[in-house]
């Protein structure tokens, strides 16, 4: 599949930055040249050992980071050199992200966190709250709408993060370990929800070692294997 036809496409991207090495010593992470295409409507699961660059790859796919070399394509457009404002706009309209450590605005309530990307779009507070509560209800969190994120358990926080990523019905969902903090039952419901999303046409990219998230994948990327 060509870069133009792919929903997201990385072409021989590399990325290196300072990172703690073994034993906490100063070290350097280096992502070897990687090419990856995400097809519309597909489910891609990225797996691999710790430190192989899974999250770095996801950040590059989301436009949260820029490669040292190589090209990044989003929705048929080369975005390697586009200004950060244009990338933000693309993300807001078409990309939902679940971060590895969730990352919430701690001073805001759960529903405000879930709907925060809608603030600059001019959607009224009433409508934002309604949409957030509807989504929270889907994840069994209707009771938590008015609470602060830190008051919730890890599993609940993970579902809030998922709800936040889906608030504006994105074309693609990028999720870093979306079932790592939930119990098996909740994990199964998350997988089932993602499958239903995919059936509706949402493209799914997840980082996970969870077999439940590997099985439905139409593509699997093992970061431990040599890159093409």
């Amino acid at each position, binding site marked *: 599949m060509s870069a133009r036809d792919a929903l997201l496409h990385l072409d021989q991207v590399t990325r290196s930055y300072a990172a703690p090495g073994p034993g906490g010593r100063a070290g350097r992470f280096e992502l070897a040249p990687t090419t990856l295409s995400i097809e519309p409507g597909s489910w891609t699961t990225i797996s691999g050992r710790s430190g192989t660059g899974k999250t770095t790859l996801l*950040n590059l796919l*989301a436009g*949260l*980071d*820029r490669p040292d070399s190589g090209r990044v394509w989003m929705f048929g457009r080369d975005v390697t050199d586009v200004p*950060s*404002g244009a990338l*933000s*706009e693309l*993300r*807001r*309209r078409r*990309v939902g*992200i679940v*971060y590895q450590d969730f*990352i*919430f*605005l701690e*001073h*805001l309530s759960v529903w*405000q966190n879930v709907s*925060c*990307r809608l*603030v*600059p*779009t*001019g*959607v*009224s*507070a009433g409508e934002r709250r309604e949409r957030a509560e509807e989504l929270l209800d889907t994840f069994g969190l209707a009771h938590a709408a008015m609470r602060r994120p830190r008051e919730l358990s890890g599993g609940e926080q993970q579902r809030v993060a998922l709800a*936040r990523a889906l608030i504006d019905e994105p074309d693609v969902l990028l999720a870093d370990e979306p079932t790592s903090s939930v119990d098996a039952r909740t994990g199964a419901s998350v997988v089932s929800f993602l499958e239903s999303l995919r059936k509706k046409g949402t493209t799914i990219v997840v980082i996970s070692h969870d077999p439940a998230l590997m099985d439905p994948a139409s593509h699997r990327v093992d970061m431990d294997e040599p890159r093409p």
Partner: protein
Amino acid sequence: MSGSLARHGNLLAAAAENVACNARGYVVAASGLILGLSLLLSGVAIGEGVKREALDSVQAGADLYCSWDAFGRDAPVPLARVEQLSSIPGVVQVVPRIIGRARLASEWAVLVGVPLERLAEHQVPVQGALPGGPAEVLIGAELARLTGYSAGDSITLEGHSVRVFRISGIVSSSSSLWSAKAIVCELEEAAVIFGEKERVSDACVYTRPGYEALAGEAIERLDDRFRVQTRDLVEGYVGRGTTLREGVFSALSALTLVLAIASFAVLTYLGKSPRRREIGLLKAEGWSTTDVLEMVALENLLVSLFSAGCALAISLVWVRLLHAPLIGPLFLPELPTFPSMRIPSAFTPLPPLLALIFSITVTMAGSIYTTWRTAITRPVEALR
């Protein structure tokens, strides 16, 4: 509501939420600013009030003030010369005055000797009565408070001679500041106390409208040792005097505000770590740099409104209710550190407006640049 307006409304609501949630941090960061602005507003209000009151006194006073020249300086005028002024064409009234310093109990006071029949013409607000004869005096409200005297008490004034008077009334504290520590007595009695029966401090000359300049020239022709000051000239002195004090005070306030900018910048910078992550998240969620900057600018606007409002409220309480402790004496050196009397003040709309603009400038300078720097970094770095 249009989409653009709704967007601004949403960002304003988000800014208000942020300010409310971080109120304690903002109050700490803005405290230096509030202090500086309070000082500035208080100083400007007192300076303006003192100037207005002084100018009102000048306006209600004589058309010409005549003193005597001795060795190139102001000196008392021979009484015989003062009596000649009444004959100058255009002059309708001449009021000789003796103004000096006298001690009442442990307090220094300004002793003013004037023909007492003139007092009734000036509608002086008095608790008690105007002096009914040369053995009675009026004293200012602050002097009465400090010495514990009240209407009906007897006082002794000692100078060249010792005189005993009865206090007929207290000049109201709502009256002019200049009367607060004054003792007003009959001209001849003041002359006896100071041992100066042939001379007076100066003479207030009232003329017919339009005759001020002509009368002034005629007085100087009468004797070139007369020093004549017109009302305009006195107004100029008053204006320059208060403006100079206001200027010195404003410079000190400006210094405080410069320190406030520095402290605000440092404190908001110290608070930037959690904000860096917050801004990174907003950018990752699709907020544009403009959205982030607008929200932070609106937060600053709200903090500025709060700071300027607090400063104005503190100034009003400080000057109007507490009588400007500590700063009052900077404008009126005769005041104690903690005055108990009314301090003249005028709160005009311009200083609070300037305070608001200054406040906005300080808060923006303290945060917009750091926010912009964070907003343009890669979200992944801001989120680390």
